[in-house]
């Protein structure tokens, strides 16, 4: 099969899956992922493995650049200041909680239940990076499922406001966390017997370099945007700059995620009329996201499912406990209302888009070739299971908080 045919199949079948998912009131992304799993070499074997792991990985780079740019663009400092102490504190604690609990569970129990026997690789080159990375990815919460439930039950009040605020911010924390986690895990895998200074230097360079590149490209786009007189030319400029930022990051060995998120952040905070610089992406995002998430599903590997199944359970268990306890601590420290303290943690379990995107980035990194397949299958399985468990829990939390305006269906 050639590359273009594979792309066509991914988009059209993904589009169909998205439509079906919306029919049964699931987010479109779930439809894309399930179609992708069906197309994977493990099941129907329609998209060949060498394409999925080879030429098609350019789709991952492009899409993650766009996702990071858009999420950076949501971080307007003016808005962040008005969000209030509770939302900021709960976001920080529940993200850290998820990271810590998932990380610790995998670090302590992973080697007992998840077999990994790569030659010449120690614990700190396999299970430890796996724990750090999956922990960081677990910070993300999907706003799509949460917003759908809030709409369906016309929920409003302090609980719903806090819930929406946290899910709006959470993905940015996950991107930041995963960029740092990838960088440090690479150091662990390649570190060997190097000194601490030599081990820490590459991650620090990666983070500082990504921030600097993002700031530079961000200011470049601010100065160049007046040259784009139409929406189409503005889209060409924005898309080109995102690609430039991803490509330069790859060349310099720094994080394309962090660089693109910084670019979006600089634009939204330094430019007065920045709305269109993000709005133009709306014109192309559906086709890109359909292709991307269907491709993500196609990475599913049935052969590693026995090991990935246990890992998936550890992820779900760690994430649920970490988010619940983190939200409790954050809301207590910030003196949030009782309904927020008691039930917010239960509303933070949905996950999908950013989680899948971030894990795909890990999978395509040659440094993680030993653990990449296992991680992606486990995370994909956890996303699908989450789609079934998390929405009822969010519903329950909204009803217990007394903020739903229509009776439970």
């Amino acid at each position, binding site marked *: 099969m050639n590359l273009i045919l594979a792309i066509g199949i991914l988009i059209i079948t993904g589009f169909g899956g998205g439509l079906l998912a919306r029919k049964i009131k699931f987010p479109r992304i779930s439809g894309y992922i399930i179609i992708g799993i069906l197309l994977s070499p493990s099941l129907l074997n329609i998209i060949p493995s060498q394409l999925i792991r080879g030429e098609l990985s350019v789709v991952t780079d492009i899409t993650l650049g766009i996702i990071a740019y*858009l999420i950076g663009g949501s971080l*307007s400092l003016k808005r962040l200041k008005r969000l209030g102490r509770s939302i900021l504190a709960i976001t920080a604690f529940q993200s850290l909680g998820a990271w810590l609990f998932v990380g610790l569970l995998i670090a302590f129990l992973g080697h007992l239940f998840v077999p990994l026997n790569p030659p010449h690789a120690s614990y700190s080159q396999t299970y430890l990076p796996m724990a750090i990375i999956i922990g960081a990815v677990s910070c993300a919460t999907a*706003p799509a499922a949460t917003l759908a439930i809030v709409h369906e039950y016309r929920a409003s009040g302090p609980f719903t406001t806090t819930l*929406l605020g946290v899910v709006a911010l959470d993905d940015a924390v996950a991107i930041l966390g995963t960029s740092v986690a990838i960088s440090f895990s690479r150091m662990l895998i390649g570190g060997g017997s190097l000194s601490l200074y030599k081990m820490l230097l590459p991650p620090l360079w990666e983070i500082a370099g990504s921030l600097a590149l993002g700031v530079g490209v961000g200011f470049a786009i601010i100065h160049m945007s007046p040259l784009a007189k139409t929406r189409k030319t503005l889209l060409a400029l924005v898309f080109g700059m995102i690609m430039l930022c991803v490509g330069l990051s790859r060349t310099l060995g720094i994080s394309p995620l962090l660089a693109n998120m910084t670019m979006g952040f600089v634009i939204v905070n330094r430019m007065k009329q920045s709305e*269109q610089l993000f709005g133009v992406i709306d014109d192309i995002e559906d086709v890109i*996201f359909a292709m991307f998430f269907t491709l993500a599903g196609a990475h599913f590997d049935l052969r590693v499912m026995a090991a990935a199944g246990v890992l998936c359970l550890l992820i779900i268990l760690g994430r649920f406990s970490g988010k619940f306890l983190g939200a409790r601590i954050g809301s207590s420290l910030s003196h949030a209302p009782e309904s927020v303290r008691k039930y917010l943690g239960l509303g933070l379990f949905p996950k999908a888009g950013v989680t899948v995107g971030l894990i795909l980035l890990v999978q395509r990194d040659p440094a993680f070739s030993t653990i990449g397949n296992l991680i992606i299958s486990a995370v994909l399985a956890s996303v699908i299971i989450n789609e079934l468990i998390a929405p009822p829990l969010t519903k329950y939390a909204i009803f217990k908080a007394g903020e739903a305006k229509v009776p439970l269906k």
Partner: protein
Amino acid sequence: MGEGAMPVAEVMTRKVITAKRSTTLKELMEIFRRFSLRTLPVVDRENKVIGVVALEDVLKIFQPHPSDILDMLDRVPFLDEYDDRSLWDVDIPPEMGVLCVVEDLMNVNVVTINEEATTIQARSLMKLHRLRRIPVVDKENCLLGIISLFDIIMAVFKQKGIL
């Protein structure tokens, strides 16, 4: 100046209906209805443009969540679209008409055009930002008039001798 382009100042409508920060929702809706308008520039005491309020902004009061959070969520990718059920279902007390003012609804990121600009530039801005009317301001950002697609088309027709 490009061929056929005219200075905005020659084409714009000088008599502009504006709103103030303190204009109530009831007054705003009456202006929209009376003049069949969909957007109004908002000016301060010195006639400086401080925002713009559109008919769509009125929908914000049907939204029970803070607009800052909704604006942030709007930027986050992969959200599915939902219908505006709340528009028909929500209970709005009559006192909302006087309690809610333009300052609560307006968009402060307003696109304006300088009086010295041309109609070509005005049209480009309209296409880029998907607008039909743009406030025309001087160097101090004081409102001088408003230019609409209607004004531009009329001016072109006049120039061609059709009108």
